[in-house]
């Protein structure tokens, strides 16, 4: 039987984000992200004057773009994309030129000085391939992120995208980002 086509993506409900950083630390532990670097982050926007104030938090990580510019510019093919859409770095092929970092519109990548290679969110492939959800998705107190397969019509992310309004970030980059932010 042929493998069904898959397209992994994240749906993010930023309003529920508490900026608690659990996802950041979980990722650190799961993926041995060096201190000082992050695969995911919480953007924040603070506005207003006392007492009319607002704070918005917004988790972000690699968007696992459909047309990833990081992959396009990589001179060695170290940056590559799986059939299920997950964009990865092959650490043995990476020469550490950092061109991909510059080419990523979402500042999703970091340079691992110790290893001399570039790294970023992998959607926790090591977990996903076992049928688990990524570490950041699992640990979140308010379950801000929902991970799933867009090709699966019964998936929860499909349901969310069908019933809720959403946006992607900076679609004009043409990268086809796959983090869907609920509005």
């Amino acid at each position, binding site marked *: 039987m042929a493998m069904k086509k898959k397209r992994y993506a994240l749906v993010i409900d930023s*309003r529920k984000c508490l900026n608690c950083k659990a996802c950041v630390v979980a990722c650190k532990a799961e993926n041995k992200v060096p201190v000082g670097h992050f695969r995911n982050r919480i953007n924040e926007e603070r506005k207003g004057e006392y007492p009319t104030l607002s*704070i918005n938090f917004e988790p972000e990580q690699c968007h696992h773009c459909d047309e990833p510019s990081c992959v396009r510019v990589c001179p060695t093919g170290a940056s590559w994309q799986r059939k299920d859409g997950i964009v990865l770095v092959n650490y043995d092929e990476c020469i550490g030129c950092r061109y991909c970092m510059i080419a990523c519109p979402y500042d999703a990548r970091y340079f691992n000085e110790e290893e001399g290679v570039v790294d970023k969110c*992998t959607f926790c492939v090591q977990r996903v391939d076992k*049928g688990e959800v990524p570490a950041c998705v*699992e640990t979140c107190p308010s379950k801000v992120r929902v991970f*799933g397969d867009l090709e699966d019509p019964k998936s929860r992310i499909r349901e969310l995208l069908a019933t809720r309004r959403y946006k992607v970030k900076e679609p004009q980059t043409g990268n086809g980002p796959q983090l869907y932010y609920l509005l």
Partner: protein
Amino acid sequence: MGTIRMDRRLFLKTAGATAGAVAATQVGCFKYFKKGRSTAADAKEIPTTCELCPNKCSAIAVVEGGFIRKLNPNPENPKSRDMLCARGNAAVMQVYDPDRIKQPMIRVGARGEGKWKPVSWDEAFDYTAKKLAEIKQKYGPEGTLWSSTEGFQEKFFVNLGQAFGSPNIVRHPTLCLASVNLAYGTTFGTVPSFDMLNSKYVIMSGANRFESIITPDTMDLIGSVMERKAKLVYLDPRFTVTAAKADEWYPIKPGSDLAFILAMLNVIIAEKRYHKDFVDTYTLGFDQLAEHVKQYTPEWAEKETEIPAKDIIRIAREFADAGTRALYYSGRRSSWYENDFQMRRAQAILNTIVGNWDQMGGMVPNASLPKGEFLFMPWDDPKASRVDEVKTNFPLAAASDGVYLKLRENVLSGKPYPIKGWMVYKQDPMNALPDQGKTLKMIEDMDFIGVIDLQMSDMAWYADVVFPESAYLERTDPVEVMPGIWPAVVYRQQVVKPIHDTKPNLEIVQGLAKRLGLSDYFDYTIDQWVEAEFKDLPIPMAAEHMKKHGVWAATGEAHYGKTLTPDHRFVTKSGKIEIFSERLQENGYDPLPVYNQIAQPPADRFRLILGRVGYFTHANQSNNVWLHEFMPENDLWINPAPAARLGIKNGEYVNVASSVGSVRIKARVTEEIRPDCVFMLHGFGKKSKMQSLVYNVGASDAVILETAWDKVSGNAAFHGTFVKVSNA
């Protein structure tokens, strides 16, 4: 809980998860494989219970090649709702922290100088036992003080203090939640949980639930509020994350929450919006209340709270209309003001009159689970009475926990009798108590100080002997029942062997007990203890289950209304919910909450207020590398208006001085705080050089906080300090 379960259903953990791990090739964890550590093939998953804060979330430790690789949340615990917070995740680094105390140490230099001699356990035990025996001989067993903060192994430490014969056991509640516990206890005879999952209208007085994480309240509330199932009204002088998520935020004038609540009572009663049936059937003293709150009009409250009267009226109406599904949330750290008990009492009363008691979406008395007990040899009650004289000063307070700040005053004055030995377990009084200068004085007056900790806390830094306890991931602890709407029982089992020469607290206690001639009282192993506790659990094959799952919870459905039968007796004097409390009256306190305005800062001062962020626990996570990177230094929040007046610039250092001390700290000029307050986070400006990331970085609030306490409960009043801020 719908959303949480959905994810799970989608990605059910495959049973033999470990088998597939080899497939993890180089991706994702290349470092791991490159360093030649074992492949994932020998990975083990061991359920345990997080210890990094009082919430006790269930975790599953992934161990590979003898290393704890990661902690995953355990979805089986309804209280932790399938999550681990940042701290829970960072517990891995608690174990591998290079700053950890790696073996027992005896002080060789002056106290606080930081000169240590690493010693064997025998030496540390012998030395400590000798010192304690000396003190006992000179001053009696009551000449020793045993202080600790909650934890699964705390009971062994407390037991040692008692077996030693000291009445002076002091625990953390009077730094934390003593006033709220006493207020709800006085009213209902028990302290209920709050059904945030089903509530429709929640009001919170500075319970910063989206940063100060309390399970499952934090997770339930964010879901309810963001999915528009509940409305959240939040009062806080600061614009916290909770404020940011709330439907309405009011920067209430500090210390005036009681006025707000009294005015709500006034409106609800005047407009007859209270739950008459409930009030008639289950409560006592409603008429006195109605009479009493007539004086507290919304217009009056507006002046006290700076919240517009029309908003108070509207909120009161909305609250009453939400009725049994409305909640005035109790809060946890109620160590605020000298009138804190009465403020919490007023909340309890407000909740009562809308009839939310034991209702879905209301306050629910905790359900519990039976658990076995290990029967050990009992000791005699101590002969002396407590040094903090709780019985006479705080007749209603929980004597067994003590009243910390009164205790410190008495120790410092040497009356009613001297205290010369201080044993500390899992607590950092140097930072947890206000006025560090006084704590230091108390330390100086001691003949002996022994501290049991994982890391060289500031308290440990000033000790004579430091006993390194094994981290929670390295030890097995007693079984804990967590009462609640969804009661659960959790188990903390050893995940890896201790990586340094450390011991679990029980073994430390036993080592000391042996040398103090108290061995008979501690004649058991942790395994025997735990086995005994497993016995009466309502679980088939309890031991096996707990070892395999780490948690057991009664199934999903909450049970409401068990106490709502006319013959139910509340554990109060009258057997009813006591709106009017005769007990309070008999003991010389106001039987109904009376408002007295608290002191306000003079024009050139600010009120210093406290609080938390989601990724630190109290004073003790700022040195964890995985958390430290979120905030390498603390700062002082100050509103731009006064900052401009004082010429204070964002990011520049300022001096903050109170009547008891002063600190130097960076200013954070921010709109997110009232102009009459300043705020700083706990856990920085450490004196201990073995907290290398935060040693002398930032400032400790304990240095400038003044000593005050709530009159009824003895709970510390931390928000009464006025400080002067000037450019450094």
